[in-house]
Each structure stands twice: as structure tokens, then as C-alpha cells.
């Protein structure tokens, strides 16, 4: 029928098999999308607080080193950049350490989940829980293609599709069926596979010990609902090195916070701003150069807003400035709370005396992180972001007052002396990180293991190629 004829007006160059992980294969059929997709490798745009340039978050704000003391994020934390770098940045991050081979290293295999279209392939081949099992290094040779087509598209119909089980399962837990999603919702849900808060559940019945990827949405997606979720299951991501608080890390609740903003309310999807239509040679297509919309205001914003590009940028910057003004103050308070708690322990405080205080610190930092970790939230939803920060201010005030009284009781009735944490280096030294050592391990890993991975992968993919040609009659 003619409709289909038209639909495939482009001449397919290759037949793309299910879960094809190699983006360049898809690119043969969809060169415009592929070319724009490759542009996520660009790193030349920096906005006030975002952009594709490499930005060392710990360098820009060394308080975070203290906030994350005892956890990976104190070692190394950069702002996300283009999807092309997902694999490279994961390998380079000091958080993943310097594994020497299979079974080694600090991170589980689950860390690969949001970085590559090899993931759905592996899950299909071996099973979901099997994919999540084992160490990160175990699957280094398997996961090599950066985020790409198979993460979001069905290879037959090119329809948007959900390739990650965590999102499907999270919907089920909320009693919703993701298959009911409209086309417009799908234009955000493909992003919600990754740009969301998550945790690793090691107690899943039948899969005990496997760090199973889960989104804590059962009670809702608000900061309070997720907090309750974690409190109820007594979950913690790590124990804070200074204050000994059972901490939570809010990773990047981008989708959750976006939903509370006015754009979501009006039906504007992630793709509308981050993947607007683009015209090239008189032809329009979806710009797959996913990036800060501020590098592309004309297509990203001016479709709907007739304002000057400069004014629109200023709108964004103003909201970000207002959010970070309070965010920084909040961080100061939470940093102080950790150090004051340490002082209290040092002066002999008991578990009993510290219990409530530690819960306040846990909740305050969780709320701060929820408002901060998704770097877009201060624009995506400025009012909710501010509300959440307000609630963090409340909790940390209570906590620090208790601390002040406890310290006075322990004989220290004056402000606790603060260490010099004015730079990333000083802060890392203060919390006792041996960064040089970590860097050396990382170098060794990159010299020895990574090349092996790449070779193995090359050999494997060479195999696909043949398969491919045969399919392409």
C-alpha cells in the first residue's frame, strides 16, 4: 500500500537487526540523524552552568568533596557531556577505579546499564539479572558502543521504544502500564530510562546479592515520597566518612523534576527542547545532537517563544542563579553539619545521642542532592527546586541546633573550627583521599585492560558484520 511505500521512501541501505548496537550501521539508513548524532562529540559549548565542555564539578565547588566523603563522588565528578562520551567517561572516571581484570574493581556491572546500546543486546542474550551480576570490569569487552540508536528505537519500525527494564518495572510498581504512553510522552520516556534517580537493590527476592537496578518510585516521585521509600527499606548508599551518617545519593532525577515544571504541564517533552527539528538542504529531521538547548535557542525555544534569544538565555540563567545562590548556602550548612557531627563523635557522643541528628543530615543532603544533581532542574522546574531546597533548609536547621546543644553538653560551646576546603585538592586531602594513587591505578587500567577490551570487542563485532551482509539480500 502506498502509505508504506512512502514511509520507506528513503532507500534502506542495510537491514538492521534487533538490538544492533553499532550506531554506524543504523547511520547507513538514516544518515541525517546519524550525522547530527555524531555531533554530541563536540565539546566547545559552555553555558553559565552547563554545556558540552568538560566541567569538573568538584573543582567548581569543592564543598562537594566533603559532602561525598567516603563515596565515589568525592573522587571524581564531572558534569555530563555528550552521549558520545558515555563509555569513555565511565572508563576514565576515578569512580570506576583501576580494575586489573575480571572480578576486580569497586563498581558492579550495573554501572554499564545507562551507557550503551550493547546493554539491551546483552540483556536479550543472557537475561536481565545476569547482566546486572558481577563486576563492572567483567563486561568491559562487551559494552563498547556509546549511547545510540538501539537505546531508543525499534530497529524494524524506527518507533520509539523502551529498551531498559528498570523503567518498565518502575511503572509496574506504580500500577501503571508504560504501553499506554502516548507518542508525545514517549518523547520524554526514552530519556527517563536514564535521566532518573536510581539505586541498586541487593535484596530482590530470588536475586539476592545482585545489584539490581531500580527506580524508587513506588510512593511517587516527589522528594518526600522517595525519601520515605528509602527510609522504609532502611536503604543507604554509603556511610559518611566524617559524620557516619547513613547517606543517600540522589543521582540525577531529571525526569522526576521535569514532570513538576510548567513545560511538562503544557505537554512539552524533553525531545522538544533537546532534539528539536532541524532543517538541512530544505529537509527537516529530528536533530540528534542532544545538548544544552542554549546552544540552539532558535530551534529549541523560539518555536514557541517569540522572545530574543538573548532574553531567553537570560531567563534560564536567572533561574539557575537564583537556585544556586541558595544551593551554595545549603551546602555550607550541610558541610558544617558533617564536620560538627564528627566533632561530636570525637568528643565521645553516643549512638543514641547522634541518631536523630544523623537522620536530619541524611534527609537534608538527600533533598539538596535531589534539587542539584539533575543539572537541568533549576530551569526545568524552578519552583519545585526551590521548594525542595526550602525543605532541606528546614531539616538541616533542626539538625544543627541539636548538634549545637549536644556539643555544648560535650563541653564544646562554640562554633566548630572548619578545615580549609577551598579547593578540590585541599578538600580531598582533608577527607583523606590518595588521589595520586587512584590516578596511577587508572592509568595502568587504561594502558593494560582497555586495549584488551577493545580488541575483544572488535573481533566480536567483526562476526556480526558477516551476519549482517547475509541478512541484507
Amino acid at each position, binding site marked *: 500500500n502506498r502509505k508504506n511505500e512512502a514511509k520507506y521512501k*528513503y532507500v534502506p541501505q542495510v537491514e538492521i537487526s534487533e538490538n544492533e548496537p553499532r550506531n554506524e550501521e543504523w547511520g547507513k539508513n538514516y544518515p541525517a540523524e546519524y550525522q547530527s548524532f555524531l555531533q554530541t562529540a563536540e565539546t566547545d559549548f559552555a553555558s553559565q552552568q552547563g554545556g558540552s565542555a568538560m566541567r569538573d564539578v568538584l573543582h567548581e565547588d569543592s564543598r562537594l568533596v566533603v559532602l561525598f566523603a567516603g563515596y565515589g563522588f568525592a573522587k571524581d565528578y564531572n558534569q555530563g557531556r555528550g552521549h558520545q562520551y558515555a563509555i569513555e567517561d565511565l572508563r576514565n572516571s576515578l569512580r570506576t577505579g583501576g580494575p586489573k581484570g575480571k572480578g576486580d574493581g569497586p563498581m558492579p556491572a550495573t554501572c554499564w546499564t545507562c551507557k550503551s546500546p550493547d546493554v539491551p543486546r546483552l540483556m536479550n542474550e543472557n537475561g536481565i539479572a545476569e547482566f546486572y551480576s558481577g563486576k563492572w570490569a567483567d563486561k568491559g569487552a562487551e559494552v563498547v558502543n556509546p549511547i545510540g540508536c538501539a537505546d531508543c528505537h525499534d530497529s524494524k519500525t524506527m518507533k520509539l521504544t523502551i529498551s531498559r527494564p528498570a523503567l518498565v518495572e518502575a511503572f509496574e510498581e506504580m500500577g501503571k502500564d508504560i*504501553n499506554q504512553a502516548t507518542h508525545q510522552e514517549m518523547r520524554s520516556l526514552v530519556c527517563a530510562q536514564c535521566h532518573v534517580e536510581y539505586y541498586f537493590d541487593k535484596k530482590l527476592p530470588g536475586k539476592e546479592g545482585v545489584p539490581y537496578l531500580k527506580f524508587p518510585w513506588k510512593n511517587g516521585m516527589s522528594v518526600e515520597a522517595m525519601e520515605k521509600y528509602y527510609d522504609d527499606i532502611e536503604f543507604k548508599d554509603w556511610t559518611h566518612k566524617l559524620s557516619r551518617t547513613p547517606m543517600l545519593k540522589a543521582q540525577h532525577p531529571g525526569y522526576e523534576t521535569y514532570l513538576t515544571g510548567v513545560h511538562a504541564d503544557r505537554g512539552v517533552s524533553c525531545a522538544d527542547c533537546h532534539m528539536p*527539528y532541524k532543517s538541512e538542504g530544505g529537509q527537516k529531521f529530528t536533530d540528534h545532537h542532544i545538548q544544552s538547548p542554549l546552544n540552539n535557542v532558535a530551534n529549541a525555544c523560539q518555536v514557541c517563544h517569540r522572545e530574543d534569544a538573548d532574553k531567553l538565555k537570560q531567563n534560564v540563567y536567572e533561574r539557575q542563579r537564583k537556585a544556586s545562590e541558595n544551593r551554595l548556602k545549603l551546602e555550607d550548612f550541610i558541610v558544617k553539619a558533617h564536620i560538627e557531627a564528627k566533632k561530636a563523635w570525637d568528643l565521645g557522643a553516643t549512638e543514641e545521642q547522634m541518631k536523630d541528628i544523623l537522620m536530619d543530615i541524611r534527609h537534608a543532603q538527600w533533598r539538596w542532592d535531589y534539587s542539584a544533581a539533575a543539572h537541568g532542574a533549576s530551569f526545568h522546574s524552578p519552583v519545585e527546586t526551590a521548594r525542595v531546597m526550602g525543605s532541606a533548609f528546614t531539616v538541616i536547621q533542626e539538625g544543627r541546633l541539636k548538634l549545637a546543644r549536644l556539643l555544648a553538653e560535650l563541653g564544646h560551646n562554640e562554633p566548630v573550627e572548619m578545615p580549609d576546603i577551598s579547593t578540590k585538592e585541599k578538600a580531598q586531602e582533608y577527607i583523606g583521599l590518595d588521589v595520586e594513587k587512584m590516578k596511577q591505578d587508572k592509568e595502568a587500567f587504561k594502558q593494560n585492560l582497555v586495549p584488551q577490551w577493545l580488541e575483544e570487542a572488535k573481533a566480536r563485532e567483526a562476526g556480526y558484520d558477516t551476519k549482517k551482509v547475509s541478512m541484507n539480500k
Partner: protein
Amino acid sequence: MNLKKNILPDKKSRWRTVAVFLIAVITGLGLFMAKEAEVVSYMSDNPLACVNCHVMTPVYNSWMHSSHREWANCNDCHVPHNNVFNKYYFKAKDGLFHASVFTLRAEPEVMFMREESQEVVQNNCIRCHVQQVTQTKYDGWIEDHAKNRTERKCWSCHQEVPHGTVHGISTIKNNIAPIPTDTEETVIPDWLEKQIEDK
């Protein structure tokens, strides 16, 4: 009988066979057209109704990416809204016209709205934006609006509303759009569905 006589030539005439054949063809063609065009869905306000024709995919996709997607569907602009009768009359007339052109494969590379359609659309712009374009208090805000709006088509200025500034059947790279005949309703691929069940 009389009517039949008027339509069908004399029994003996050799035109008779031809005519019968032609009628059969026309009816068949009509049904075929109706099927091809998903006539029933054409009665609805769902924009998908329009994408039944691939030639409508470019306009669908440009609308999909426009500021108006959330507020105005095709019929909000392209069909009269002054009364219900007019709405369906216009739709039917228009639909048959489109369907015929489509079936004859006579669609031009670059389409233009006919004069009648333009009037309909212009009225619809005004229908929604009446306050913005008629209140004198916006005279200062939107310079010259009052004068220009009466003498020109809205889209002579608002060129990108809602189909963008580039028009034509080939203006969309890949003619991919959700189509009403698409029966696949799940967004989870089979393999994943199975894996989740197995788990």
C-alpha cells in the same frame, strides 16, 4: 425507471456495457478510495486521520513540532468552526477533493491552500486569538497589528505557524509518523517483555 433511463444508455447501445463497467469502476474506486483514505477516521478530529495520506506526513510532522501542537489540531485550523453543519460539509467536500487528487496521484510537490481554505484558516486564527489581535490595548505591544491583520493573512508574518517556513512533500527527511493503521501498541520490544516475564 426514468432515472435509470437517464443514466444508463439504451439497452441496445454498446455504450451500455461500457457504462455498466464504468459505474462498477467508479463504485469500486470509491470504495478503494474510502479504504485507502480510512474515510471513517477522517470524520474525527484526530490529526492521525490526516496522516492516512502520506502526502500529509510532512505537514503532520511540522505541526507535531510546532508551538500549536498542544492546542490546535488540524481541524481547529482547517475546518470552519462557525457551525456544526458547515464543519462537516466542509470536511466532506474537502476530504473528497483530497481523496480524489490523492488517488489519481496528482498531488503536486508543493501544495498550496486553496482560497476557500485560506479564508477558513484565517478565521480560525482569529477565533483563538481574537482578544490578542483585536484589543486596542495591545496596539502598543504588537506594533501595526491592528492595521495589518485586516489586510493580510496572519501567516504572511507568522510564517512558521504551524508548518514552518519550508513547504513541500519532500521537506521531511524520513516520512515517519505514527499512522492510524499501525496496530502495534506496545512500546516494549518483545525480547524485553519476555525477559521481564522470565525474571
